[in-house]
């Protein structure tokens, strides 16, 4: 489905996904595989929480001093012979990239996977000036042929089956290709090999940028990012302004966290550190190298205590694989460049239009699986609540829900009113209760009762029963053993010493 025909709420887009049986199964299968891979890899490596904490600290530190480290990176990259550019907005970044392409009189650009490029819709812009942009990551190539966008950060074509892929590739080949992975991948290898050797420009994203040496680092499995940075005469790298880490030593921590979290690998098949264009006597590597440093909404998170940690994200996709909502609805239902829990927070945050943004922040049960999976411990489940709150504060909450919550506050702000309401419920439910349950799909119960039976309220609430119960207990109450008393006293003492919170995970 193209982006234009997509409905404009997550709820509607999810409905479509939920009715697409193949998609649901494919997404479930893939995320399951990646999730297990991650679990095994992190367990095998050991001390995972210590590594996560270290990763988090390095990212926190770098972002907290981003002016210093980014500036250092820029100076060093320049000293390496790189042309560095700054783009405040996506439009600025596109303008710079197009200008380079025009100046190089480029006809073809080969690209390795870059989420920033997806953010900018750069391929479309390149085509607009007559430059062919070719995605070379196998999955990206497939969805580019299909005219779609990635639905997963790590496995972009997660939603396509081999028959659909064979059809797409057969069209390019001009002959019928067998729906066999080896055949299809073999065809792409041959086809893209020509493009790599002939393209004028190679374009990449950037996993990490090393401040102290001005190097940019790429993780990949296929070798296409190496092709793109080795063969064309000009290289353009699109880099989110927050991709910085201080040193190669810090890269060890990221290299430990990223592949394990993304795919369960100890390391991706290739990890490349590119430090400037080719040296004068080298016989390969680009003659000219550009790095476009992109803000596009990122700096809006700086200094915002609730969202600054978003910039710690290393784009591993682990939160997507862990998310039960993502597993059921797939990436396109999120309606932005980034999907899953990170997308649900990042998309409105980058756009800074929390208020206007659709119901994306509602597409979460707040189960916290994303936080648990995150290699740099970003509290996405809490950020989702902050997003919802900001929307309400700006007056863009759902009117019906707002009224409901006012009622909630009135009811729950006072135990007497709560008690009265329960009593009313006990009486009122008689109209709809059958066999101790409510099945009627009426009013707010419609969604709930489409999948469940609601229990009826019992004859008496706990508060109605307590006095009798307490009476009964008082008679048969056991003497507290000295051991138990001792433990309780110790817990109180410990709390006093530590000032609270100590017994929690």
């Amino acid at each position, binding site marked *: 489905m193209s982006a234009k025909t997509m409905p404009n709420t997550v709820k509607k887009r999810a409905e479509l996904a939920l009715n697409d049986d193949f998609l649901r199964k494919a997404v479930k299968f893939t995320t399951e595989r990646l999730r297990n891979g991650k679990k095994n890899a992190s367990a095998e490596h050991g001390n995972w929480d210590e590594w996560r904490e270290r990763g988090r600290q390095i990212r926190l530190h770098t972002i907290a001093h981003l002016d210093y480290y980014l500036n250092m990176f820029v100076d060093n990259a320049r000293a390496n012979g790189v042309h560095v550019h700054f783009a405040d907005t996506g439009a600025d970044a596109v303008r710079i990239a197009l200008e380079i392409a025009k100046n190089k009189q480029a006809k073809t650009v080969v690209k390795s996977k870059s989420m920033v490029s997806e953010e900018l819709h750069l391929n479309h812009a390149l085509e607009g000036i007559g430059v062919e942009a070719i995605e070379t990551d196998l999955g990206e190539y497939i969805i580019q042929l299909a005219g779609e966008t990635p639905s997963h950060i790590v496995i972009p074509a997660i939603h396509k089956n081999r028959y659909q892929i064979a059809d797409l590739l057969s069209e390019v080949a001009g002959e019928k290709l067998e729906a066999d992975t080896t055949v299809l991948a073999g065809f*792409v290898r041959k086809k893209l090999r020509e493009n790599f050797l002939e393209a004028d420009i190679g374009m990449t994203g950037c996993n990490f940028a090393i401040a102290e040496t001005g190097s940019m680092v790429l993780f990949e499995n296929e070798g296409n990012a190496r092709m793109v940075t080795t063969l064309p005469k000009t290289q353009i790298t699109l880099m989110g302004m927050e991709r910085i880490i201080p040193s190669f030593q810090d890269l060890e921590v990221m290299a430990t966290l990223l592949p394990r979290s993304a795919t369960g690998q100890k390391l991706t098949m290739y990890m*490349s550190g590119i430090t400037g264009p080719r040296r004068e006597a080298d016989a390969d590597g680009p003659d000219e190298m550009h790095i476009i440093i992109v803000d596009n909404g990122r700096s809006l998170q700086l200094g915002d205590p609730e969202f600054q940690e978003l910039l710690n994200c290393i784009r591993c996709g682990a939160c997507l694989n862990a998310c039960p909502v993502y597993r059921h609805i797939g990436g396109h239902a999120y309606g932005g460049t980034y999907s899953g829990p990170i997308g649900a927070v990042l998309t409105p945050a980058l756009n800074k239009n929390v208020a206007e943004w659709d119901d994306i922040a509602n597409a979460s049960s707040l189960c916290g699986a994303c936080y648990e999976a995150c290699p740099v411990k970003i509290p996405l489940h809490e950020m989702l609540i902050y997003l919802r709150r900001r929307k309400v504060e700006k007056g863009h909450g759902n009117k019906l829900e707002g009224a409901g919550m006012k009622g909630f506050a009135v009811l729950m702000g006072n135990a007497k009113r709560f008690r009265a309401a329960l009593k009313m419920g006990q009486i009122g439910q008689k109209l709809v209760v059958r066999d101790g349950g409510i099945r009627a799909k009426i009013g707010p119960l419609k969604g709930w009762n489409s999948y469940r039976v609601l229990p009826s309220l019992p004859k008496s609430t706990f508060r109605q029963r307590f006095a009798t119960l307490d009476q009964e207990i008082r008679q048969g109450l056991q003497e507290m053993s000295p051991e138990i008393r001792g433990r309780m006293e110790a817990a109180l003492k410990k709390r006093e010493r530590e000032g609270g919170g100590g017994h929690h995970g």
Partner: protein
Amino acid sequence: MADTHQEWLRKMEEQSRAKQASFMDGIAKKLGRPRLAKAPEHPFRGAPDFWNAFEWTPEERIERFSDNWRSVGGHVARLSDMNAVRDFIAGKAKEMGARYVVRQNEAELAELGLEEALPEAAVSVWNTDPDTYWKARSAEADFGVVMADYAAAYTGSVAVLSSKDKGRSVSLLPTVLMIVIPVDRLRTRLGEVLVEFDRAGRENLPAGIHFISGPSRSSDIENDLTIGVHGPGVVYALLVG
């Protein structure tokens, strides 16, 4: 054209330098403080201490490296000396019918005498002739032969560094890649290799540092693992010594 392009680059450079200050000022302002002039204290640099103390014996390193390399579909041969390396490569070339071989221009590889050992194949030496289009030469090669600069056992990775004599293409474009790894270059942790680049410093880094951990792969089609998507699909780690 060349002049106008250089001119354009200069113009862009000027704009960029002008923009740099305001870009950084903007970041500092959002962070709610003046620009940092001095390096901040970085107490969390690199891996945790317990990790930095971790080291395997040389034999263990070889074993674990080999296990890792094989587990991703790579091949390993443990060879006693460079003569054995030559014989191994020659044997494989014969077996697979390799007709074009490209190798890095390194003393250790020159001493192998592959040219004599492979009379049926055309052996080229990277960047030894200015009129050859070396990228294409590598692309048509059946075998690429390179020396490892470093290797790390824990992740099963080899590092190759570029120079005028060491093409990035040689480890990337041929169908089969032979990596010769003298065992004294094999470390335990990735960090032991990475720290070398911090020590070397920016001015001494090559344009390309590539860690290779096995054959090129993808699972992008229905999660079905495919080997050799863009890079070499057959990769030999030849551990020597």
